[in-house]
């Protein structure tokens, strides 16, 4: 019991630290030499979203594999460590797809591979079920891969500015910016609370006890974070913020961007054509 509490604490701590450092420091987005980093953020977002849409429309594993590998190539060209990127994408996959996929594996009719039950119900893992599961997982993974590429290679302010200039209204941008900062604060407050609790309690708590304490702290945590969130908005206003993102670089579409966009459109058309007409 004690160990399980420790394990949960350790894991939560690890995840929070990871998110705080990796996501919010925008380490890779600031490496201006990368393939995707060099692009105009608007073009990049449009291009990668085209790839996401293409990905979700594909019906064959071969084509999906090609698109997945292409995302890895983009990642390497953007100087993001491949393993880090793959981990980041696949970390979320089980959550998203597991729930949907598990029943499908058993319920899709077809050639049985492994029969689990014959009576009272016939339940078997089928070849078609597995195939569908793989297809679905790969599709989700590829779509997420491209989305993650946007966030890894673009600074948050630039994404906001780009979305703003692509027509997303100011108020939505402000809310998203505040939400982004709020999540960071919340994570930090959770972490701080875990540290301070650790230093106050010499003995380890049982799981039930620790849940009771967690429940109590939760309320305090949300009030604290809410007030801090409010103060962040005030601190922004106080320094001249006016519900409109401002960044140092001017967006400018270059040849490089046009070539990229043409390339993306070409890839999408070929993938879709091959998927629908030839396979």
């Amino acid at each position, binding site marked *: 019991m004690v160990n399980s509490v420790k394990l949960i604490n350790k894991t939560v701590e690890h995840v929070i630290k990871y998110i*705080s*450092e990796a996501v*919010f*420091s*925008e380490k890779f*987005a*600031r490496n201006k030499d990368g393939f995707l980093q060099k692009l105009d953020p608007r073009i990049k977002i449009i291009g990668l979203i085209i790839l996401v849409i293409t990905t979700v429309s594909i019906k064959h594993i071969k084509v999906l594999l090609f698109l997945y590998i292409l995302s890895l190539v983009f990642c390497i060209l953007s100087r993001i460590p491949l393993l880090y990127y793959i981990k980041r994408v696949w970390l979320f996959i089980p959550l998203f797809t597991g729930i949907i996929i598990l029943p499908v594996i058993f319920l899709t009719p077809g050639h049985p591979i492994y029969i689990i039950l014959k009576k009272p119900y016939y339940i078997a893992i089928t070849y078609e079920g597995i195939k569908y599961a793989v297809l679905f997982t790969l599709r989700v993974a590829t779509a997420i891969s491209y989305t993650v590429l946007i966030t890894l290679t673009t*600074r*948050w*302010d630039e994404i906001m500015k780009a979305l703003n200039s692509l027509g997303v209204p100011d108020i939505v941008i402000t809310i998203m910016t505040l939400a982004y*900062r709020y999540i*960071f*604060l919340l994570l*930090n407050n959770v972490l701080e609370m875990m540290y301070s609790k650790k230093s106050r309690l010499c003995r380890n708590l049982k799981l039930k006890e620790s849940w009771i304490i967690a429940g109590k702290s939760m309320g305090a945590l949300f009030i604290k974070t809410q007030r*801090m969130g409010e*103060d*962040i908005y*005030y*601190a*922004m*206003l*106080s*320094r*001249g*913020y*006016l519900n409109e993102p*401002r*960044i*140092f670089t001017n967006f400018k579409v270059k040849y490089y961007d046009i070539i990229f966009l043409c390339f993306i459109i070409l890839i999408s058309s070929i993938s879709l054509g091959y998927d629908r007409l030839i396979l």
Partner: protein
Amino acid sequence: MKPLYELKNIYYQYPDGTIALDNINMKIYEGEVVAIIGPNGAGKTTLLKILDALEFPKKGEVYFEGKKLEERLLNDIEFMKYFRKKVGFIFQDPDTMLFSPTVWDDVAFAPLHLYDKDTAIKVTEKVINEMNLNHIKDKHPYNISGGEKKKSSIAAVLSITPDVILMDEPTSYLDPKSRNYIINLIKDLKSKNKTIVFVSHDPNLITLADRCYILNKKIIAEGTPREIFSNVEILEENNLDVPEITKLFKLLLDDKDLISKINIDNLPITVDEAYNILKDLLKSKT
């Protein structure tokens, strides 16, 4: 002289019903250093938010340079920019002020919103150099020490060289070295004739003020630091502290055997003052 700020019968209540300020009347003049002292929950932070036109009083009026601060006026972009350049607010918790991916971006935030881009870059670089933040400017604010966070949040306000600086408990949670930094900073800003309004419990900081207000929802007392520190009952009633050196002299004066030997008009409130008194005393002995 016309006051920079004039507050008339300010009343402020939060949406949940908490009354934070009640019938506040206050004048702040240009070039003045004003300390706001009061127990926790006294409404000090709320008062600073009103001075920075982030909150507006539910009743009463705030005048800044003779203009009434209200939401409508702040919605005027011209005035907003003028006011935000003129008044800087250093929040108590630097975490609320540091929300960008790097320290540099946080320092650049105000200039970017208030100046053109070239000027913004220039003033940001300038303040980063002046405050020796070069070694942390590319770091995420999450990864720096408490003292460095405070310094960065100060740089984020000083980057627009405001004439009026509001500081909320600038020395809370700081180590002695960073505390001294803040004390010297206030002295420096004072010598540049800036108007400073700060909230603090720290006696060493309060002695830097020209004038103090004791606040507890209402204004309890007003006066110079010396007047305030000699009013021991009020200080105790409001959970406030007196400088250690003042306590020492109070003890000495309360001692019947010594009272005839020490002959002073005022209790010292700084180490310098105490030093001079003791020096005179020891000299007269020999």
